[in-house]
């Protein structure tokens, strides 16, 4: 009877999911309630977790709970710590969930709600979760080794080197693009700039508290910090209302760029306890709170989605970024569906803390499902606003014009009715001078979130507070990615430099710290600068570049995973990783080719450079703008070279892997796995980790 009931419940869940998916896929012409998105996503995730992840765990990976994990064998109370699975799930989710699942779906909403939503759900279930789960498993079986080390051991030495280089390249592009999102959110906004600036002294105050006053008391320090940050959000309004203070905090895009570059350099070079770590604690708490509030808000308000299922921009003429639905929808939404960067987390701290092998399913597969759900919520928030407003916020001035009237006329011509006064009124309501031309996703997501929150608490009266709370939340954890990423990049530069000159690798040597910090900041700072001065909006160039790089890293991770499965003798099941890998290689190579060689100047880097060069040759560029145009031409050619190099590196790795797979399948080579030897666990079945070990 119990079995029958269980089956019946799962049939109901699957039917609900299928019905909700059909509703969002087939509805045309009327606005759709957001609850259908929540229902479709939740049911698909439940069924996928119950069936597909169980299949991968049992048949493909054959997880073994009698085997001691690295946390048991090397338990040292520092790196290797057996941790309760719920606590580790929280750690892992906090590490993988950054701004990507919020910004990517918001940008991809220009295609309409349907393509992005379907990719978020299907991509996560069949590719993203599988990647995180399998890489986590591989790392557990290898004492917590990193993706680069596993690529070197299981694929080839060159494979490991390529993976390391790819990580550094992706880091540089990632940091540039997330910084650009912050610049576009803060420029000409004294309220938002003041609030974010205040998080720096607040974080330093917490740093001193945690180091000298109450060492390691993270919870109480974070609560103090969160209260201060919320006060800063409210105080930002007073700053914006004061003419003198408002003037001091109204900064141009270039001024904010300089400030962010200086900040990241300081965060990388200063002791980690002073600025970077306390900001990370603040960010983690506010992130958890904001995501939970957004989910609760969507469930309570049940907003209508006004964006059509498909827009006219699926043909590649979109104003937010150029590119057809294939492959650019799948490049734009990386985190939320599949993100190569996750493989670095799955082969980082998490495998060293996992209690039992079977927990890898809940933590690896389950946490990625939750991140995908965050992506679906971001899609709902973006599509719940009027499409005209969405396009006015996210389109660059070079396409829609710089005044509300010009933007409204252009966007209305596209079939999305918008009055210029609507944008002026909305900007006034959220406490901004203007909301136009703020490409990057953060401001439009903040408007969407603010509208949902204010429908629950405060109405229009609190819209400006909610908007600036959302901007602060996004910018705060983007800056956390920025400073943590800059520091990691600094270590990578020091490691690479140490191969040439050994003292450079010493992480405590001050000149080495300063020089390596300056190098990594200069690398991403250059890409950020070119994005800020790009008249087509830097997002058009940089976000696809970031998506390509991130998905290429995912392809690297899936190459390693497929090789390991082959060596384990699971040839029958290699489709589980091989099919997502083939899909990623197809979309990334197509996107790379189009971004380099497409003849449309908005799309192809070389076409844009050539079009500008032709204008210079024809004398159409005024003398005052000649130097800027020459720099723009150089930048476009540089972007083309970077894309080509990334694609070439991954192709080399794939060829190396194919040679090895052929040798293994044709039995010309004996499979050699580099797993740690089997050691039986000493823990009883009830042992639940140190968090509850004394229960």
């Amino acid at each position, binding site marked *: 009877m119990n079995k029958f009931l269980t089956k019946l419940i799962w049939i109901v869940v699957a039917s609900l999911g299928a019905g909700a998916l059909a509703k969002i896929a087939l509805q045309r012409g009327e606005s759709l309630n957001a609850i259908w998105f929540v229902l479709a996503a939740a049911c698909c995730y439940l069924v996928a977790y119950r069936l597909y992840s169980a299949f991968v765990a049992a048949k493909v990976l054959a997880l073994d709970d009698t085997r001691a994990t690295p946390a048991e064998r090397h*338990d*040292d*109370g*520092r790196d290797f*710590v057996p*941790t*309760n699975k*719920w*606590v580790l799930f*929280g*750690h892992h989710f*906090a*590490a*993988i*969930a*950054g*701004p*990507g699942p919020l910004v990517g779906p918001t940008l991809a909403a220009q295609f309409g709600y349907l393509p992005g939503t379907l990719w978020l759900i299907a991509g996560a279930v069949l590719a993203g979760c599988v990647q995180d789960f399998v890489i986590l498993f591989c790392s557990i079986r290898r004492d917590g080794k*990193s993706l680069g080390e596993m690529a070197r051991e299981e694929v080839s030495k060159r494979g490991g080197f390529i993976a390391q280089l790819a*990580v550094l390249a992706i*880091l540089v592009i*990632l940091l540039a693009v*997330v910084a650009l999102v912050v610049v576009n959110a803060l420029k000409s906004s004294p309220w938002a700039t003041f609030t974010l600036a205040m998080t720096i002294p607040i974080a330093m105050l917490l740093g001193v508290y945690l*180091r*000298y006053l109450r*060492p*390691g*008391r*993270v*919870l109480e320090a*974070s609560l103090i910090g969160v209260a201060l940050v919320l006060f800063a959000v409210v105080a930002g309004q007073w700053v914006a209302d004061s003419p003198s203070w408002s003037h001091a905090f109204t900064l141009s895009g270039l001024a904010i760029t300089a400030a962010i570059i200086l900040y990241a350099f300081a965060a990388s070079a200063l002791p*980690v*306890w002073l600025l*970077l*770590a306390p900001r*990370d*604690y603040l960010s983690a*708490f506010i992130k958890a709170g904001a995501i939970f509030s957004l989910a609760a808000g969507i469930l309570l308000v049940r907003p209508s989605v006004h964006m059509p299922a498909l827009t006219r921009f699926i043909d590649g003429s979109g104003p937010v970024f150029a590119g057809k639905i294939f492959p650019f929808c799948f490049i734009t939404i990386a*985190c939320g569906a599949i*993100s190569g*960067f*996750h493989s*670095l*987390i799955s082969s*980082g*701290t998490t495998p060293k803390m996992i209690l039992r092998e079977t927990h890898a399913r809940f933590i690896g597969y389950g946490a990625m499902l939750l991140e995908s759900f965050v992506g679906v919520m971001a899609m709902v928030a973006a599509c719940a606003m009027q499409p005209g407003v969405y396009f006015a916020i996210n389109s660059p001035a070079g396409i829609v014009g710089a005044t509300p009237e010009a933007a409204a006329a252009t966007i209305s011509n596209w079939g999305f009715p918008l009055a210029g006064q609507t944008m002026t009124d909305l900007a006034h309501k959220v406490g901004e001078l203007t909301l136009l031309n703020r490409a990057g996703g953060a401001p439009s997501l903040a408007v969407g979130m603010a509208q949902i929150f204010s429908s629950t608490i405060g109405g229009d009266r609190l819209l400006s507070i909610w908007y600036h709370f959302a901007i602060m939340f996004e910018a705060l954890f983007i800056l*956390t*990615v920025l400073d*943590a*990423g800059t*520091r*990691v990049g600094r*270590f990578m530069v020091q490691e690479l430099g140490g191969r040439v000159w050994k003292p450079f690798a010493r*992480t405590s040597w001050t000149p080495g710290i300063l020089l390596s910090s300056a190098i990594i900041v200069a690398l991403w700072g250059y890409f950020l600068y070119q994005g800020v001065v790009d008249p087509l909006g830097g997002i058009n160039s940089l976000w696809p570049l*970031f998506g390509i790089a*991130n998905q290429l890293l995912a392809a690297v991770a899936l190459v390693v995973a497929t090789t390991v499965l082959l060596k384990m003798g699971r040839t029958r099941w290699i489709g589980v990783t091989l099919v997502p890998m083939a899909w990623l290689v197809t979309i990334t190579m197509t996107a790379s080719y189009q971004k380099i060689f497409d003849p449309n100047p908005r799309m192809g880097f070389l076409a844009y450079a050539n079009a500008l060069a032709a204008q210079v040759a024809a004398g159409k560029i005024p003398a005052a703008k000649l130097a800027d145009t020459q720099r723009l031409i150089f930048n476009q050619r540089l972007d083309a070279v970077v894309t080509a190099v990334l694609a070439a590196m991954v192709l080399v790795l794939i060829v190396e892997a194919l040679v090895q797979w052929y040798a293994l399948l044709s039995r010309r080579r004996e499979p050699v796995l580099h797993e740690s030897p089997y050691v039986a666990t000493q823990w009883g079945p009830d042992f639940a980790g*140190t*968090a*509850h070990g004394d*229960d």
Partner: protein
Amino acid sequence: MRAHLHAGKRMLRKVWRGLREWCGDAAYERYLRSRTQRNALPQCTLSAEEFYVEQLNRRYSHPNRCC
């Protein structure tokens, strides 16, 4: 009724401990427990401040935050 209250209290205690573990509040206590279990020399045990700084330096030397 009392049984429900007791179960509720146990649940809250578990959530509280989980939260302290998640945010890192309990890291030093866990480290001390691990040292005791391994019978490590007390003079080699780090102070709370040393442990906090050492743990941060290790955590932020490799990718620990995704995009």
